């Protein structure tokens, strides 16, 4: 308890610096961060780094195995897979990041309000969440695409919205077990308003599950986006996107392993990195680990 009181009095910048220091000491998290940075850099500089253009077809050089010229081989249209993966990091990272931001933002807010106020508010929000849970993602995506036209934005919104209930329920459960604890009452007693209590006292204490969930859902977001692309609701060709590269390549899984393997590895590496990083972040942010 005494640790916590000290914790609260700290300036937030100091807290962040401490957390950052702890994070940097975690080698796994640093590895994750490095992979993420590489991905971000390759997304930004794809046009500089990539040896070929992402949409340059060479129909006489289809399904070339990996070679010094085509590091990851070529796909069913003779496009360079390495270049497409580099460009694809743009789409996939953006889809992952933005949809997770949408879902964790809305979900956390709803969950926190629901868990904190309980009773009637909880009831209304949870019924709302139940409604959302019941609506299939694809139907949601189609409806959104119908309003906004097909494209990547819909994918992000559809994927984001469809994973809101997960966050909401998770956060709600954590908040419910936190809200009656002494330090919340303490905060309330010194006149902190509900907003402040939720933002400053409750949410930081349920960061751990939120972060774990967020890192996990980046993967799910990337894969859901792929599924939507497959139904024609996502990224428009020839713009590469890992998930749809994987889906389109599935027909060749037994003949040309590289067509599916490299996008698959790209997704796995990304998810792996976010997981490592998220894990490290959780440990770094968790005040209870401080001693």
């Amino acid at each position, binding site marked *: *308890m*005494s640790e916590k009181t000290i914790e609260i009095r700290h300036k937030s910048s100091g807290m962040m610096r401490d957390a950052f220091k702890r994070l940097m*000491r975690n080698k796994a998290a640093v590895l994750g961060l490095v992979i993420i940075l590489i991905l971000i850099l390759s997304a930004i500089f794809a046009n500089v780094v990539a040896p070929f253009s992402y949409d340059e077809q060479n129909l006489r050089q289809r399904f070339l195995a990996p070679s010094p010229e085509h590091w990851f081989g070529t796909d069913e249209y003779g496009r360079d897979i390495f270049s497409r993966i580099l460009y694809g990091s743009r789409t996939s990272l953006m889809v992952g990041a933005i949809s997770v931001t949408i879902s964790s933002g809305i979900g956390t807010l709803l969950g926190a309000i629901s868990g904190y106020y309980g009773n009637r508010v909880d009831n209304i929000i949870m019924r709302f969440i139940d409604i959302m849970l019941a609506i299939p993602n694809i139907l949601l995506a189609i409806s959104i695409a119908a309003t906004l036209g097909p494209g990547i934005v819909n994918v992000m919104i559809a994927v984001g919205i469809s994973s809101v209930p997960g966050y909401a329920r998770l956060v709600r459960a954590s908040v419910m077990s936190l809200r*009656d*604890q*002494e330090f919340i009452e303490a905060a309330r007693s010194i006149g902190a308003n509900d907003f402040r209590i939720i933002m400053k006292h409750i949410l930081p204490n349920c960061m751990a599950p939120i972060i774990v969930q967020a890192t996990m859902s980046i993967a799910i977001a990337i894969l859901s986006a792929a599924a939507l692309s497959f139904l024609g609701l996502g990224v428009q060709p020839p713009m590469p996107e890992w998930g749809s590269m994987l889906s389109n390549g599935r027909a060749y899984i037994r003949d040309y392993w590289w067509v599916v393997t490299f996008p698959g590895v790209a997704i796995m590496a990304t998810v792996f990195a976010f997981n490592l990083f998220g894990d490290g972040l959780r440990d770094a942010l968790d005040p209870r680990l401080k*001693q």
Partner: protein
Amino acid sequence: MREKLLEIKNLKVVYSTEEKVVEAVNHIDLTIHRGEALGLIGETGAGKTTTALSILNLIPDPPGKILEGEIDYNGTNLLSLNQKAMRSVRGNKISMIFQDPMTALNPVMTVGDQIAEVIRLHHKISRKEAYIKAQMMLETVGIPGNRLKDFPHQFSGGMKQRVVIAIALACNPELLIADEPTTALDVTIQEQVLDLMDKLQKEFNTSLLLITHDLGVVAEVCETVAIMYAGEIVEYGTLEQVYNDTKHPYTRGLFDSIPKFNEEVKRLKPIKGQMPNPANLPVGCNFADRCPDVMPKCREADPIVIDTGENHLVKCYKYMAGGYEA
């Protein structure tokens, strides 16, 4: 002198993480006699709780590790016992009350379960008998027996601490370690809990190791006092010796920093500075930097423990001349 119950010899405990080693307890010696109430005083981070946890061999490992020393209990070194033998000591011969009653009880089990658990662990009795015993214990600590089936969140803080005490005393232990048992409670409740502990200690003839930073609490309950600073015991003696014939500058500092209502003191004198970082202890006396009486040699080598007479031990160069090595 009474029979020795527990003797801590040359105990050294460190917490090590990848980049640093924290020396939490540095070669301390401490003896508790049968029926004795010993107060272990020190500020936060002095190593009191680590000492207590070492006795039960509950130092979280990793990162903690007992590097050196012995803890002799009735002639056996607890540190040499295997897990199974150690478990038969915990909660049975030696039990512990933790600092924060709010978190010390398992929120998903009824208090009855939690009291009965310790009874059934150490006594071969039926579930039913254990619950009867648990109910008796509850009543002993002043809680109506019909609340056996209630959960911790249905109790107030003071009552939770009573439950914790009931758990600790359920098997009639020979030694009770109380780690800041009243710190988290408000003053009126504190008094009740202390009275209860005092009463029960005498009633059960239990030895008590009371860990606290509150000099007043010790004065009320304990016969012997040990002052701990930066992982070391800097002064030890009877209540009388330590309180009325305070030797160590740190102990004096402690007394000066609390208000006394029978003296006219214009201003309290807090101890200047902060306890040294246990990950980076200075050469020489750990207290040297804050000591008003610091001498050059204090910074050169660590002082040894001196017996200034009648087993009043001090770890300070100031008393080197008058005393002899303990």
